[in-house]
């Protein structure tokens, strides 16, 4: 029988939530790594028992954890993330040069075919790879040494590489996103990179449509259409149909187009989900209502999904790695909030239930569909 395993990273530990395919009754395990910030937990598509977790702390730095049994037990893997060669400077908040400094791993992206191969997106922004299950790491320096890198500036969360998307039809083709530099695309498995931000406009920059400098919060694709990408930018929800060569706005009738998450229904490549957030100064949902917005037309036309979600006195945020979809039919959609709730929909968003309500603030949510 099928089932799902939801992997939740929080400000104070990781949790593993499991259910059968009905997704009605849940078992909650954790906290793993209690007291540590868990920016991301993700399983290998090639071996569902192999999980990776990014564990970090302001006191003790970065630890990378690995599980071989679906999260029952964990072992510390390698935490030696050294930039390759001489590191220069990027741009600081005030516009001055600032040295590149490793702080933490924001995002883990396991290979689609090899459980030992994983990528890590880090702060200050760079891409690392491990070919031995996280025991050792090497930077893929073509990104950080891009000619535009000295102009990259941090967003409020730091200069973070937070999104890694591997084209499922061509693993040499990758997309990453950095706050606040934007999207970069590689056609040679990460050796070289090109900015992919044409069509984005950001009024926080002197040149609103500059090649780089955009605060892209999240990008997502559907496996059947790797040339179509969806983006939640700082402001604006965007879409590309040419592999990120160009983008167009699809915010349409959203009540606000600021937000962090965006994801695509696993069975319907034109069904997209976002959670609008009031603004960049109000990092909480509008009008005290937690609403997921769904477009079944690939953008522009959005409907509010509220059944089972709080519609009064709710002031939570949903961070960029905190929404995901499973592979079942109907598609399951999951997201976690800054208030510690993890919500699940087993019907593509029509109705929602809280799997758990009182976790520490949720940083990331991933799901594994188990056969």
């Amino acid at each position, binding site marked *: 029988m099928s089932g799902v395993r939801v992997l939740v990273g929080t400000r104070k530990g990781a949790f593993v939530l499991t259910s059968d395919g009905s997704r009605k009754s849940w078992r909650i395990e954790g906290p793993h790594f*209690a007291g540590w910030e868990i920016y991301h937990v993700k399983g290998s598509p090639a071996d569902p028992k192999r999980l990776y977790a990014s564990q970090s702390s*302001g*006191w*003790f*730095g*970065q630890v990378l954890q690995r599980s071989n049994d679906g999260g029952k037990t964990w072992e*510390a893997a390698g935490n030696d993330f050294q930039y390759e060669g001489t590191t220069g400077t990027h741009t600081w908040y005030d516009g001055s040069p600032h040295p590149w400094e490793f702080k933490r791993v924001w995002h883990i992206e396991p290979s689609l075919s090899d459980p030992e191969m994983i990528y890590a997106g880090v702060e200050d922004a760079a891409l690392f790879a491990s070919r031995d299950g996280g025991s050792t790491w090497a930077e893929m320096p073509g990104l950080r040494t891009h000619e535009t890198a000295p102009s990259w500036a941090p967003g409020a969360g730091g200069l973070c590489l937070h999104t890694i998307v591997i084209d499922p039809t061509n693993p040499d083709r990758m997309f990453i996103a950095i706050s606040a530099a934007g999207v970069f695309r590689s056609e040679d498995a990460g050796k070289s990179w090109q900015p992919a931000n044409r069509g984005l406009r950001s009024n926080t920059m002197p040149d609103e449509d500059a090649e780089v400098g955009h605060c892209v919060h999240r990008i997502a694709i559907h496996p059947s259409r790797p040339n179509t990408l969806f983006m939640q930018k700082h402001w604006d929800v965007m879409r590309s149909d040419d592999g990120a060569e160009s983008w167009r706005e699809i915010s349409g009738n959203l009540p606000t187009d600021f937000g962090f998450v965006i994801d695509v229904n696993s069975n319907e490549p034109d069904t997209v989900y976002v959670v609008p957030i009031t603004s960049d100064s109000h990092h909480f949902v509008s009008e005290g209502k937690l609403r997921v917005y769904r477009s079944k037309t690939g953008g522009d036309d959005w409907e509010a999904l509220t059944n089972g979600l709080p519609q009064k006195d709710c002031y939570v945020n949903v961070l960029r790695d905190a929404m995901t979809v499973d592979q079942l039919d109907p598609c399951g959609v999951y997201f976690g909030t800054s208030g510690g709730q993890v919500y699940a929909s087993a019907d593509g968003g029509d109705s929602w239930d809280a799997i758990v309500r009182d976790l520490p603030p949720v940083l990331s949510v991933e799901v594994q569909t188990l056969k």
Partner: protein
Amino acid sequence: MIQVVLPKNLQILAGVGRIVELHVSGPVTQRSILDALEESYPALLGTLRDRNTKKRRAMIRFFACEEDLSAESPDAELPQEVASGKEPFLIIGAIAGGWVYG
């Protein structure tokens, strides 16, 4: 044997209890204790000091014999009570409750 007290988070990470006992050859200093600690518990590499520069992480403190030794040279000999195992070498996570990491 040298006795080292670890903060709770690092006890869990290393899979040990509050106190670990270490054999240190030669002068007993912060550096020699941390070298021995990291050799015995590799999971602690990088959590107390920078892997390359060996500089203490900003929010880590070292106490012994009711003294704060954090700012002392890592190569300064520690008190005889620590070297003899009579007093522990305390590794402390700085008090920072309510700060961004709280």
